[in-house]
């Protein structure tokens, strides 16, 4: 028998500790920060965060390493040519799909 009281309390706690870090800085820092170091720091944050989240997780985001590598290569190529978010994401998905079907045929 599940203890729903405990589960609901846990969900509430999780919701609060997820929401607060997202909400506080956005609500508190309304003015432009003028300190050049902080400005530069914040300029680099998105790139550092996204790069750290992409690698190496992208390699394990599909059913096999091979299809992930194929999808990654396609994404890199299109992104390098300056294609938008949706085309890059969709092409990566398409390449993974085709690659996995091919692998299924071959193996």
């Amino acid at each position, binding site marked *: 028998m*599940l203890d729903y009281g*405990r*589960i609901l*309390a*846990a*969900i*509430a*706690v*999780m919701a*609060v*500790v*997820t*929401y607060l*870090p*997202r*909400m*506080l*800085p*956005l609500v508190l*820092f*309304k003015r*432009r920060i003028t300190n050049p*170091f*902080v400005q*530069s*720091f*914040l300029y*680099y*944050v*998105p*790139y*550092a*965060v996204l*790069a*750290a989240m*992409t*690698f*190496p997780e992208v390699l394990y*985001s599909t*059913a096999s390493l091979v*299809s*992930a590598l194929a*999808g*990654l290569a396609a*994404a*890199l190529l299109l*992104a*390098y040519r*300056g294609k*938008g*978010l*949706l*085309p890059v*994401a*969709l092409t990566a*998905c398409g390449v*993974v*799909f085709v690659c*996995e*079907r091919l692998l299924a045929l071959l193996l």
Partner: protein
Amino acid sequence: MNQSFWKGAKDGLPICLGYVSVSFVFGMMCVESGLPAWVAALISMTNLTSAGQFAGLSLILTGAPLMEIGVTTFVINLRYMLMSLSLSQKVDSRMPTLTRAILSFGNTDEVFAVCMQQKGPVTTPYLSGLVICVYIGWALGTILGATVTSLLPEMVRSAMGIAIYGMFIAIIIPPARKICPVLYTVLLAMAISGLFYYVPALSQVSRGWVIILCAVGVSALMAWRFPVKQERREEDANDA
């Protein structure tokens, strides 16, 4: 006004797609471990985060005390403080407090990523469209995963798993190609992230901490070595 809303919703589509595949798995896991579908939906609709939810779910199932659940998910979510701070400099400075408080609920990794590569300030209608679109994807995926497991075949889900990373790549590659310090930032962050993933002693560190470490360490180093002039920031934003 309306146009910005739909632009936001459109930019949210690749996120929505990626979310469906991830939250689908979350919904499935919840039901497979004995929780009812409405609990899965409730978690997704009140949390809207991936790593935190998966960690929280496994802690709930093992019967961990509330304190432990809270601290663990908080540590995983600390990175949002950095993103929220970055975003506070990017949103329309006239955005009212209440709007900020509401929309910040949808400030996920991916929403943040899309906002930061916008030209100029992020407006309320744009951010609303974006957040609503991804929220629907996250909630819908969870509900589908928890109820109709057979609707999305494994082969489609596997292919959709790469969507979010494809999007991240589309965001970081074009500026990394043009601006050297951004390229260094990307390469260094990947190197550190990989190190913490593959080196056995370091892989004990939770991914939440690794992302914070990469973000703070690499950005601080770059800000010190390659300070960005305000004018250049604007220029980059305009031709990005």
